[in-house]
């Protein structure tokens, strides 16, 4: 009980942080905004196709449903402390519970502790992990060599290599791995390895190891709908492979592009300092000084994306 309360409290604190950083936490900021973003999209028709007959995924997509909790916790959870109740995103196994090995479940729960919130990469302004990115709007573009580009939030770009068969050498480890794509019928399958395991799948501490293999399936259903699933295979952490999906199918939004933003989340970020100080104090480390004694005493801004 107490644990859950603390967890929710800390998640709430982090949500405030996210808000302060002007992170697009709900993709577009709530269900009303989602509805507005879909206004004007022509009714769903047949799957649009490219010259080679494969589905044309070009456009802006959002499967968040405008809810925030998918970036917080992946399994079924009660509401409270500013977090909406939500069902599980796990579609396999059927019980909706991530099949952690016992040690890994303990580790996931440790990461949920208040005092360990700073370990979450998003609190550092570091990049969102793949499962988390599925809770935000994104743009897909096809390149003439067949590659698929996904423009995610926070300037994160994934270049899905459609021509390469072999993954990068083992020594190259990347925040969001090495994605290689292929078509299976009308489904774009993206196979990602070479992860560095520095990111979390959700604020709630869900994780995999650097040896995980992530298999995403983008299945176009009609001109306005893509079904997305993510299957995680990692014998080091889980007892079996498991699969999650987005809150709702990825749904087409109007192609609104903002060319002029710049992600400067880590500049003058008081919230980051606060999180780190809490972490340091709890873990017997020396916190950062509140401000540097030397040099210009600049203004602490809110950080965020301008």
């Amino acid at each position, binding site marked *: 009980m107490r644990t859950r309360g603390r967890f929710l409290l800390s998640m709430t604190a982090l949500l405030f942080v996210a808000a302060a950083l002007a992170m697009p936490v709900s993709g577009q900021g709530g269900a009303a905004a989602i509805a507005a973003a879909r206004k004007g999209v022509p009714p769903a028709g047949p799957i649009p196709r490219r010259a080679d007959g494969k589905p044309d995924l070009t456009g802006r997509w959002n499967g968040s449903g405008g809810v925030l909790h998918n970036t917080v916790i992946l399994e079924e959870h009660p509401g409270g402390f500013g977090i909406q109740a939500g069902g599980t995103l796990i579609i396999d196994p059927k019980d909706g519970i991530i099949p952690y090995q016992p040690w890994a479940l303990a580790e996931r729960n440790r990461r949920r502790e208040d005092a360990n919130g700073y370990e979450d990469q998003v609190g550092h302004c570091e990049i969102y992990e793949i499962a988390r990115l599925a809770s935000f709007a994104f743009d897909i*573009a096809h390149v003439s060599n067949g590659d698929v*580009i996904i423009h995610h939030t926070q300037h*994160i770009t994934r270049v899905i290599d459609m021509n390469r068969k072999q993954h990068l050498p083992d020594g190259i480890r990347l*925040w969001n791995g090495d994605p290689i794509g292929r078509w299976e019928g009308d489904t774009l399958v993206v196979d990602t390895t070479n992860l560095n395991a520095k990111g979390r799948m959700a604020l709630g501490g869900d994780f995999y190891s650097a040896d995980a293999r992530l298999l995403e399936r983008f299945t176009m259903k009609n001109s306005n709908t893509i079904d997305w699933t993510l299957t995680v295979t990692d014998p080091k952490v889980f007892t079996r492979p498991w699969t999650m999906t987005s809150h709702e199918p990825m749904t087409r939004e109007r192609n609104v*592009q903002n*060319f002029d933003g*710049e992600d400067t989340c*880590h500049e003058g970020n008081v919230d980051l*300092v606060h999180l780190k100080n809490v972490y340091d104090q709890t873990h017997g480390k020396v916190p950062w000084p509140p401000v540097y004694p030397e040099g*210009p005493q600049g203004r602490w801004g809110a950080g965020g994306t301008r």
Partner: protein
Amino acid sequence: MQTGLARLLILAVVVGAAALSLSPNMTAQAPGGQAYTPPRTPTGQPDLQGVWRAWNLAKYDLEAHGARPGVPAGLGFVVDPADGKIPYQPAALKRRAENSAGTKDPDPWKNSDPLVKCYLPGVPRITYMGWPFQIIQAADVVTFNYEWSHKKRQVPVTAKVPPLPSPEDVLNWNGVPRGRFEGNTLVVDNTNFNGYAWFDMAGNFSSAALKVTERYTLVGPDTLQYEATMTDPKVFTRPWTIRMQLQRQKDVGILDYECTAMLDELGIHHTWPREFEPPEP
């Protein structure tokens, strides 16, 4: 004690890592850019797509310079004015010297180079820091996807270019880009700079009044000519232009380099108070 070591490490990571990218290709000078006819994209634009990288010394100093610790001597990249020197106003030249002197401190807070704090490099610096970037073209937008801290610039190239935001609303490290094609050349005009970014590790700088016009021209199948013209009446006596060749990287795509994450892993402060109003030049 740990901090001292970490600071040395960070200097190596943030500043020195640029040194890993040296190759003899820097001598490849292509003529005016007209001799080569580039392939076209399906929408008829010159096809500049691919992964590009500057294998040269521009990151250290845009002007001709002697050796410094960790910095090889080399020629400069300023092609106009003809003397190869950035045309500073006298007061600005003094500021450049102060900037340069301040780059020796391993403490990111005290070091004068904004890049040591993992602040965004600015344009044109991000082009030739040594990390690769990928050009992706669509009908209405050209995307520059940079490996350095996964930064991205999206340049609208439509006939109906969106209006520029007011400097009151948007001031960016990398400015705000607006593009167009002139023959085989992608021309990008950049404004709305915040005035804090530098041009290189030698302290070359500008004010928020900076305007940068970049010109990307394919001069061979694997060679992209890069030109940038800087205009800033508060700092320079006249516009000036740099030119260099970028090489196509064929073996591997864009990987990652998360600058602030590396500071954090080294136990270094990676967020600082700072002024958000443009500095006085």
